[in-house]
């Protein structure tokens, strides 16, 4: 299809498609993608076996053919993307066809199941896709807690338990890197900045489909023996593991590529597509948070990709990056991984900051307090996150002279994080608070993240870290920051923005049940883990001291209630979106930000004319709404 062909349907979409169903299935779509993906997988598998049987005695002898599996995954992903139509445009450009921006934006419901360059469609795709993998990760968590009801392995063996823990952690950490930027930033950043599109719409679609392919690859690890390393993939365990480890490597490498592209696209969009008058000092705080996150994605994720490529080479063609016997070092992996891994924590946390600070002015009806302070906090966190990574290696045995530096830098990073809290508290101060469901989630975020943050300061101390490293205390800490910080703000965003995305409102009673059950059970699950950690409960083992059974049983039951709260949320989604279908108001929260000034559902073109921004964001208490000025010429 040429660039002009891609455009043609935009003006002719009213003509009904009279082709028979079988004919509609032929072309670049999800069905073709699956067929080519499976074909590519087997082609890679075949080539891998041809190479390895003639070249690598190890693979031949052990039937552990990492070359074949890695090639199978790589070819499978390429086939999948080609089937979706991602190769068409590069080939057209190679042949000299003119540049174009839009593709398959007018294909009805099929837009949601293929390559579509409408940022709103991609946002919805992300929301559903991420929800699917979050569900898988949550089911794993339930199985972990079921296993820990007893102090000896009962439901699954020790190796399967490690795989459960690994898939849970990796799925959550990998998929949720795009948990906010994927659905909400893709959908709302163009609306918030007065743009009609993302800077690179095809890349936007590519990031989503890469993430989906990655998710399925990780889930496939169970067919290859799983992996024992948890989400960190540490060497030398990584190099010694069975082929399931390759699934981990390919998953995270694809997530890394998706992250780089997502971040690049977000930054380019925010830098180049802001409406006239929307200066940097007028950007909504959520856009700032997106920008700070995107910086981390563009700079940190390439390190992850390189780290995992080295790992893949060690496992497949026996290079010696991390293999001590060949001159490598497993510490190299730890250094490289955490150079990405710690910014990764902020890739997860920063969008949560942005959501909360974006929402609370709406619900307390006053401007965001300390707007510039909040921005400096976010950028400060981004910058400093590159200078703390070795605190993850303190117990591994880093040079003792380096310890004070990393301890101090870790403690100091709590200062810009504290800025966010100050802005949160300052905005709440003397505000007229409406306790809506999104606001409840924002308040819960503050409570949870405060516990997560302060326990992080405790852990940053070398002496404490040496004692608590690898214990449930650490696990409680990062669940308070990631679940308490990100997932709670994620749900705040769902209840706040999804009515705009789908044009339907949630059942409020079910939403409140969801919130309270989730908040209470979350704290009931993770607060005792601090105590368990101090009492000596280690991570990643299913056999533990009998005197810890009581507390573990409490935690498991709380976790099941937490899981049940998610079922209430799912029930609310099904009830509100399929059965009740009550239309949402255009601006149910009386927000003044730009995304709420467009009709619901959002028109194809977002804005008939690009708005001119003549007011600061969060002008609550004044009659001027953001974006209420005169329109600029189209395309400006």
């Amino acid at each position, binding site marked *: 299809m040429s*660039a*002009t062909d891609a455009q043609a349907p*935009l*003006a002719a*979409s*009213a003509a009904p498609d009279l082709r028979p169903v079988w004919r509609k299935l032929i072309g670049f779509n999800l069905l073709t993608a699956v067929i080519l993906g499976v074909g590519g997988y087997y082609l890679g598998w075949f080539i891998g076996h041809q190479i390895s049987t003639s070249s690598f005695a190890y693979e031949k002898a052990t039937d552990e053919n990492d070359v074949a599996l890695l090639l199978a995954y790589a070819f499978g992903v390429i086939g999948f993307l080609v089937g979706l139509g991602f190769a068409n445009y*590069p080939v057209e*450009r*190679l*042949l000299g*066809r*003119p*540049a*174009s921006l*839009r593709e398959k934006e*007018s294909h*009805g419901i099929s837009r949601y199941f293929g390559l579509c360059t409408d940022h*709103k*469609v991609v946002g919805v795709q992300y929301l559903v896709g991420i929800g699917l993998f979050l569900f898988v990760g949550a089911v794993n968590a339930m199985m972990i807690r079921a296993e820990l009801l007893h102090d000896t392995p009962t439901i699954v063996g020790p190796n399967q338990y490690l795989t459960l823990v690994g898939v849970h952690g990796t799925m959550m950490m990998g998929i949720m890197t795009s948990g906010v930027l994927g659905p909400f930033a893709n959908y709302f950043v163009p609306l918030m900045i007065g743009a*009609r599109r993302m*800077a*690179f719409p095809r890349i936007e679609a590519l990031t989503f489909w890469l993430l989906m392919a990655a998710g399925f690859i990780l889930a496939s690890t169970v067919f290859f023996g799983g992996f024992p390393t948890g989400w960190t993939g540490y060497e030398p365990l990584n190099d010694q593991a069975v082929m399931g480890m390759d699934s981990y490597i390919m998953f995270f490498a694809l997530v890394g590529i998706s992250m*780089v592209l997502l971040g*690049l696209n977000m930054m*380019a969009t925010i*830098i*180049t*597509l802001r409406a006239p008058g929307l200066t940097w000092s007028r950007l909504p705080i959520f856009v700032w948070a997106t920008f700070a996150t995107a910086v981390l994605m*563009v*700079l940190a*994720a*390439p*390190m992850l990709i*390189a*780290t995992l*490529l*080295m790992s893949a*080479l060690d496992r497949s063609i*026996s*290079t*010696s*990056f991390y293999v001590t*016997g*060949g*001159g*490598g*070092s497993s*510490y*190299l992996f730890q*250094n*490289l991984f955490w*150079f990405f891994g710690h910014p990764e924590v902020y890739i997860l946390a920063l969008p949560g900051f942005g959501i909360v600070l974006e929402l609370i002015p709406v619900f307390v009806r006053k401007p965001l307090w300390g707007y510039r302070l909040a921005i400096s906090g976010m950028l400060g966190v981004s910058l400093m996150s590159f200078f703390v990574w070795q605190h993850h290696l303190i117990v591994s045995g880093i040079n003792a002279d380096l310890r004070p530096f990393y301890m101090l830098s870790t403690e100091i990073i709590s200062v810009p994080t504290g800025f966010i809290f100050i802005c949160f508290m300052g905005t709440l101060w003397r505000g007229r608070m409406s306790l809506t469901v999104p606001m409840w989630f924002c308040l819960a975020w503050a409570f949870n993240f405060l516990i997560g943050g302060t326990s992080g300061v405790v852990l940053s101390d070398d002496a404490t870290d040496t004692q608590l490293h690898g214990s449930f205390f650490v696990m409680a800490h990062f669940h308070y920051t990631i679940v308490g910080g990100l997932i709670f703000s994620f749900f705040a965003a769902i209840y706040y923005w999804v009515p705009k995305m*789908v*044009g339907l409102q949630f059942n409020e009673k079910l939403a409140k049940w969801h919130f309270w059950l989730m908040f209470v059970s979350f704290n009931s699950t993770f607060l005792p883990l601090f105590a368990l950690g101090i009492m000596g409960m280690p991570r990643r083992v299913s056999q533990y001291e009998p005197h810890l059974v009581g507390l573990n049983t409490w935690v498991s039951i709380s976790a099941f209630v937490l899981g049940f709260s998610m079922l209430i949320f799912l029930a609310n989604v099904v009830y509100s979106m399929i059965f009740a279908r009550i239309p949402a108001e255009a601006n149910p929260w009386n927000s003044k930000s730009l995304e709420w000034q467009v009709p619901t559902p*959002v*028109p*194809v*073109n977002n804005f008939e004319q690009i708005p001119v921004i003549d007011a600061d964001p969060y002008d609550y208490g004044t009659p001027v709404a953001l974006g209420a000025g005169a329109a600029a010429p*189209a*395309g400006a």
Partner: protein
Amino acid sequence: MMVPPVPAGHQIPPEPPDVAARQLAVAARLLCGASTFFFLAFLFAYIYLRSLNQDGMWRPPHEHPNQAWGAVFIACIVLSALTAIVSGRRMKAKSASWLPAVIGALVLAIVAVIAQCIEYTVQNFGPTDGAYASVFCAWSAFYLIAILFTMFWFETQIATELRARRSPAPANEGDVKEPDRLIAPGLDAAVFLWTFMAGIGIVTYVTLYLA
């Protein structure tokens, strides 16, 4: 339907090419940032493993990259980048001679890739022969992939220009107004990226061949 279908006769107005031009410039710079951190991982691995010299296995004495092919490689990279810069300047001066220059840059870069591939076949070590060999082979191989990606960008500019000279794209059709006006900013962005990648190539050469 969550996002309304495009209504009958609805036409999204084509946007001026200046917007996409700015995006290309920004994207090239951001790609430079991402590439820096990608190759920084290999530089870190080089420095870390060399300083550690685990069991004396960093670099067995017989391991030497082929200096002649390495010199051909880096010379082609540098010459290609310089030719690309010249091409970009000619483009800005509105001279039609930018096209042969950029074709020259493309050819030189491909010669560099071929030289590196030949070197793999003649050097006296492979990727499994210790830490240095691993770093050398992986770093240089991924650098070759980065070159090919950048050359793809150049090729699209060449092909678009050749097509535009034969039959210019309609000014008001499609979603970018006068899309052929994007050739110049596209080339400019590609030259920026390629110059930066050549810089990474010099660091690669100095580290792997001379240090």
